[in-house]
């Protein structure tokens, strides 16, 4: 139960990070509060979009899905079930793989790091570890 709670809190935090980057892409946020200037470089690169949509929007959707599933998993009826853990692990694995790809792009192609993206990477990594631990515990 603690793991699911931790995933819900982390997913909500991640959702806000992704939302901030998406609103920036929409022109609502002015300059990104970044510190290094790498955020602008990353966000202005062609890799900040995928299939015509901002990458941050995928992040918002992914974190929102994780948050909703983790909340559903906290309901008493779902407490003893394994299926919510599997669903969380699948979602977290997709998010983690996508984050690995984006971080590799920052490192090897764009040669700039966005602190917000790294923050999101840390969050999804923690979610992924917790989600996998939840599946292992219930096997």
């Amino acid at each position, binding site marked *: 139960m603690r793991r699911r*709670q931790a995933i*819900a*809190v982390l997913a*909500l*935090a991640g*959702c*806000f990070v992704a*939302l*901030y980057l998406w*609103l*920036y*892409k*929409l*022109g*609502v*946020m*002015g*300059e990104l*509060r970044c510190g290094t200037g790498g955020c*602008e470089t990353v*966000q*202005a690169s*062609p890799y*900040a*979009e995928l*299939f*015509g*949509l901002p990458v941050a929007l995928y992040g918002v959707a992914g974190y929102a899905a994780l948050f909703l599933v983790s909340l559903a998993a*906290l309901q008493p009826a779902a407490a003893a079930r394994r299926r919510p853990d599997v669903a969380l692990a699948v979602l977290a694995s997709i998010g983690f793989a996508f984050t690995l790809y984006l971080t590799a792009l920052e490192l090897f192609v764009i040669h700039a790091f966005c602190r917000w993206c790294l923050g999101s990477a840390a969050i999804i990594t923690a979610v992924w570890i917790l989600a996998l631990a939840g599946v292992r515990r219930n096997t």
Partner: protein
Amino acid sequence: MKGFYVLLAVVFLAGGGWLVYSANHKSTAEPSSTAPVPAAAADGFRGFTLGSDAAPIEVTEYSDFECPWCAAFATVQMPVVREQLIATGKVRWRYREFPLSAHKYSHLAALAAQCAGEQARFWEMHDALFTRHQWAQTGKDPSDLFRRFAKDIGVDVDKYDACMRSQRYAGRIDASYQEGEARGVQGTPTFFVDGRRFQGNPTSDAFKALVDSLTAGRRKR
């Protein structure tokens, strides 16, 4: 379980508060009112205007054709502003380009509007770019679509093509952007009413209230 919901509420309030704060404090580096505004483009161009030159109040809008908030303003609020403030001679509206680097086709759209403006069709192109704004969501190169807009609004397409190829108004757009930066513009749309930054939600009602109050204040003097 109670502690969990408290923690969730804290994260929600902190995250939501951060977003609201960031959206409302875009201009952390607001320049002083004495900061020099750079000279505009080499041809002295200072933006397309709507309304009478004799209008007592001027509103300058820094906008980006790909920005969804700018499109919402142009399609929902601007028609009312035109009817209530511009057509009545109270306000002259000045449009300045501020293409954000995060938007892939903003600069292209700004060039298309300038090239239409060369044939006295800027505002028609402005309206077409904002009302048929689906191009900004597809991620596809909208060059052909902009050309179709140009044709639809009665622009000579051969001249338009030549203008787009030459990018002869790129300097104007850069100058406009630099002017906006010097005035502390960081997001779009940003408005200045008689040189003072407009704060708050840009609705036609808010502009009308501000213009009426400025006009009444001048009458008293």
